[in-house]
């Protein structure tokens, strides 16, 4: 359908169809965080085991639309095995990719500071979500799992 190619890329639909790292982990040892998008009812749980500064394992459960589910799936694949520091930079890089519009939608003033440079961060598959920025209401779907991961990371490293 014209206009939607940017949103529903094949790789996004693939992650939606066959989500990676789906399931749960026992808590403890895992840490779990919950996210929720009241607008569309999407819910997500991120299970995380951090050991020795590494994301040892991550699992995702919950339900939601293609964007929130594929974003969560790609995220899990991207951060698994990375150092906590790398995962944090990935979160920042992803948010930055989404952020201009997220701020505009949230209605806050957009500050004209120089943005951080994340060109070193390899987003891989995640780059396919760039098209979401054109659909402001969906940005919250894409960022839901990332906000939830942030929470889980905080708890796991507290």
């Amino acid at each position: 359908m014209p206009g939607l190619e940017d949103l529903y890329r094949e790789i996004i639909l693939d992650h939606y169809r066959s989500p990676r790292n789906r399931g749960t982990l026992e808590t403890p040892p895992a840490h779990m965080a919950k996210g929720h998008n009241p607008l569309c009812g999407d819910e997500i749980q991120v299970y995380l085991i951090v050991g020795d500064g590494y994301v040892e394992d991550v699992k995702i459960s919950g339900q939601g639309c293609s964007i929130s589910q594929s974003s969560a799936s790609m995220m899990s694949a991207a951060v698994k095995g990375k150092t906590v520091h790398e995962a944090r930079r990935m979160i920042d890089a992803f948010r930055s990719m989404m952020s201009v519009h997220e701020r505009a939608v949230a209605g806050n003033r957009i500050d004209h500071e120089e943005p951080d440079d994340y060109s070193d961060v390899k987003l891989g598959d995640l780059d396919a979500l760039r098209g979401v920025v054109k659909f402001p209401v969906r940005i919250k779907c894409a960022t839901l799992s990332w906000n939830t991961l942030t929470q889980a990371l905080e708890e796991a490293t507290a």
Partner: protein
Amino acid sequence: MSLDVARLKKDFPVLEREIDGKPLVYLDSANSSQKPQQVIDAMSRFMETSYGPVSRSAYQLAANATELFEGARQKVQRFINASKLEEVVFTKNATEALNTVIQSWGRANLHDGDAVVLTQMEHHANIVPWHILSAEKHLELRWVPLTDDGQLDLTHLDQLLDGAKAFSVTAMSNVLGTLTPIRLLTDAARAAGAISIVDGCQFVPHNVTDVQAMGADFFAFSSHKMCGPSGIGVLWGREQLLEAMPPFMGGGNMISDVRLDGFDVAELPAKFEAGTPPITEAIGLGAAIDYLDEVGMDNVRRHEMDIAGYTITMLKERFGDDITIYGPDNVEVRGATISFAFRGIHPHDISQVLDQTNVCVRAGHHCAKPLMRILDTPATTRASFYLYNDESDADALANALDGASDIFNF
């Protein structure tokens, strides 16, 4: 069809809007309806030639504005067949109307452990105020369950009402489209000694309303769902009950005297209208009522039975098992608000794809989370029709659903 929809469509300028060259197919009227030019013009004209404060100042401009404002109240009175003008209270929306009853009547009349009956298809506006009150009063909330086809299951109604102090129930579900048997329900409440509070938010825009025939004690609705402007709603209540209730908000207009150590309330309806009311909005609501009167609410209802019947049959024929329509099939007991699930595709994705061809539907919990849990889904897609929708809109919906199938073909 009962209505000349092609002609009516022309009254709604927004329906001429094209996005990317495609006309607007507006199927979200249960959320908020569009406004006819007649309403828009009545508001502009009022602000351009006649705006003035109401009920306070005595010069001609203000007296005239007051007369127009009170004239709108009379239109509402007649439209819902209230026996007294004083029983018609202007609020900001149906939610404030329900909060006024539940918080004010409730604080004055309910005690720890009292039981109140709701239904599982209520909108949050008729649930959360009860929770707020419950935090103070520890109420026992009882819930009328649903049948498989989304009607109220009244098997145990008398038990549920036994000893209850209030029955708070919608006249039409904003999710399922179900019309509830209001007179039967208010009779049962009265027999049990409970007052009945009717949420008429979805009912009033689509049906002939007669609050006296309904047997309700309180009745709430919003202007913005019935071709009127945002910013105004209505609480109707029986005079004796409104008289006996304490006010909800304090301020100007709702008093007859204020001293350093206390105040006396004004007469109805001012008692429940604290502060400057939605003046221009009342003028707009009056114009919306004139518009609906001209069309005829019986014609609106017949048209929506037709369009609901057409749409349900068409969608089932076209999509078979791929579509699940919630709520009753029988158009005698439902309106043209149609929630559905389609091929396991998430409602948010459906609405996104539909939006590409300018088909506007709502995806979500529709402010009815308890009902979503009973339907066992976090969200539904809802297409809601109004007097300006016809078969072409239903067909556009179906065509757009084909588009969603193409993308999510797994």
